[in-house]
């Protein structure tokens, strides 16, 4: 009896695995001649990348006759080894193009060079490959994506209108050593310098709500006079708001975010967050895919393309 149940459970598990494998197989088995584009994403746990992937899938469905899409992501934003393995798998599947949002701007260069050498069109989206690493490998991979530093400068400049010269502010950075995180921090610093505000502390909130709330709690304990908290993404802005609220400082400290996730819109309406930046996540992957298809069609020499960044304030979310 016992053994039978075990066998049954095992059989069910195998059936599940087989079924899911079967589902996956139906995708590349479409019409011949259609280019196959692999989208290699960062964390699908992050709303930003989820939106990006959803946008790509919607685009593919609307243009099903033009190309096939194989979308894959890694489980968190720093799982570099897994992402390298994904690129290798896509090469083994002989896709025509790889559109990649690299988890690390240097570590993914060698594998992408191999893909490019194998005749696959590689387009870099979201997080730009390091120029030095590209040069060192002697490969040119076009970047299609937003200028994060410009976006952060935009949000910072909007905040600066509410600040006076000499005001103290703090920055909540993204995870250490991420290109986007560094660019956003630089953009915030540019804007604060231009406004004459003083950045008294800048620490990482690891892109997440809870760590950011802890960091901001500590910062407001140490620096009582701060006027604003500049967060490198919206989840961390939510954490900053929670920390300010429990310290009773929510009314006299301004918070800005980045990414325009849905949760932040409610807070902007309530006046708890001043502004955020929309990088049009749903379009970033689409731009990358369109560009990859264009290169496949025209064999044009690849160049970088900048996608729009827009300031979103309470006025935009009525």
């Amino acid at each position, binding site marked *: 009896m016992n053994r039978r149940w*075990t066998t049954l459970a095992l059989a069910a598990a195998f059936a599940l695995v087989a079924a899911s494998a079967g589902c996956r197989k139906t995708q590349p088995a479409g019409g011949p001649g259609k280019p196959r584009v692999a989208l290699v994403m960062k964390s699908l746990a992050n709303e930003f990348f989820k939106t990006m992937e959803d946008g790509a899938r919607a685009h593919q469905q609307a243009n099903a006759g033009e190309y096939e899409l194989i979308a894959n992501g890694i489980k968190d934003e720093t799982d570099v080894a897994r992402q390298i393995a994904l690129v290798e798998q896509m090469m083994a599947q002989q896709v025509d193009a790889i559109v990649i949002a690299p988890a690390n701007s240097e570590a993914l260069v060698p594998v992408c060079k191999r893909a490019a050498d194998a005749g696959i069109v590689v387009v870099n989206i979201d997080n730009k490959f390091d120029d030095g690493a590209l040069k060192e490998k002697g490969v040119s991979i076009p970047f299609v994506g937003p200028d994060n530093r410009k976006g952060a400068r935009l949000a910072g400049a909007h905040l600066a209108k509410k600040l006076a010269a000499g005001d103290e502010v703090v920055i909540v950075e993204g995870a250490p050593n991420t290109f986007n995180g560094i660019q956003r921090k630089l953009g915030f610093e540019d804007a604060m310098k231009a406004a004459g505000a003083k950045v008294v502390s800048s620490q990482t909130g690891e892109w997440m709500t809870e760590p950011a709330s802890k960091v901001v709690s500590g910062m407001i304990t140490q620096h009582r006079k701060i006027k604003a908290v500049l967060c490198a993404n919206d989840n961390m802005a939510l954490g900053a708001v929670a920390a300010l609220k429990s310290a009773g400082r929510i009314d006299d400290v301004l918070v800005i975010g980045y990414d325009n996730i849905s949760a932040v819109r409610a807070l902007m309406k309530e006046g708890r967050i001043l502004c955020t930046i929309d990088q049009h996540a749903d379009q970033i992957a689409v731009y990358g895919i369109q560009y990859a298809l264009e290169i496949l069609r025209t064999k044009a020499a690849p160049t970088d393309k900048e996608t729009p960044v827009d300031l979103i304030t309470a006025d935009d979310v009525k």
Partner: protein
Amino acid sequence: MTPRAGDNEPSAVGPAGRRPGGTAIGRAGPAVRRRRYGAVQEYLGMLAVLAGLIAVFSYLSPRFFTPLTFQMIAGQVPGAVIIAVGMTYVLIIAGIDLSVGSVLALSSGVLGVCIVKLSLPVPVAVLACLGVGPVCGLLNGFVSNRWRLPSFIVTLGMLQIARGATQLVTDSKTQYIGAPIEPIAAATVVGIPVPFLIAFAIVIAAQVVLSTTVFGRYMRAVGTNEEAVRLSGINPRPIKLAVFAICGLLTSVAAVLHTSRLSSADPNTGSGFELDAIAAVVIGGTSLMGGRGSVVRSFFGVLIIAVLGAGLVVVDVGDPTKKVITGGVIVAAVILDYYRRRLKRGRA
């Protein structure tokens, strides 16, 4: 489960001469005296570490030693304390639960979705949230019992399952709840935040259960030698099942407080909480090998990690330095505990 005379003494199955730290039920006079004396010494080491940390940070930053800092820490620890209580129980039965961080996120996600997307009343949503943890815990317990699998691997699976389920439930989107959920974390009784009181009550209740009830004694016995427990006619499986369910329930309770404090449910929340909880519990002297542990000491373990975290932010050292110091203090605290136990054993 009714107490039966004498047939379930932990000492009957435990290695001779090793009393479960601070939890033994003394009956004879000298034992009571020794335990009282022990109780002071029990917590002294950890209080010393705590006081040392506070002294160092106060020296490094003039802004650290203020009511505001302690109010902030009191606001931050309840979730971690409650999870550490569950983890203490699990470690005592020689298990481990790696899924607490993900289960916290799933509970929080369910709470968020119930309120934001399904527009359910808050009490209903909270009940749904409180149901998530026990279900996950029962699954952990059942699978590890039924197929005799180590809880390490079962809960490692649950870590992934619950995280994936969270992303499915929330559609990978942070759910902003706002005003409806905020009163829980904001409430105070005579100036003390309610979440802190809840956490404190749970610590006391759990310690009482652990040191004075038959269930507590069974837990230590299962952790010391499961086979011996079985051979003496007690089925260890319901005990293990119950402990994993309790750990799950406590994780969900923590999720309610956590969500209320942050006003939102972030699907990525809680990653790495399992390691923080295990670190806190082990700093508190609970053995990873099972059979020995104390909830109150785990509470101090959480406080040590929380003070350390808050202090490092206030002092504002760089992120790499923060990690090095945190790791160093954790190991140092456990080494200190080793000497405390050796001293104690030497005297006994």
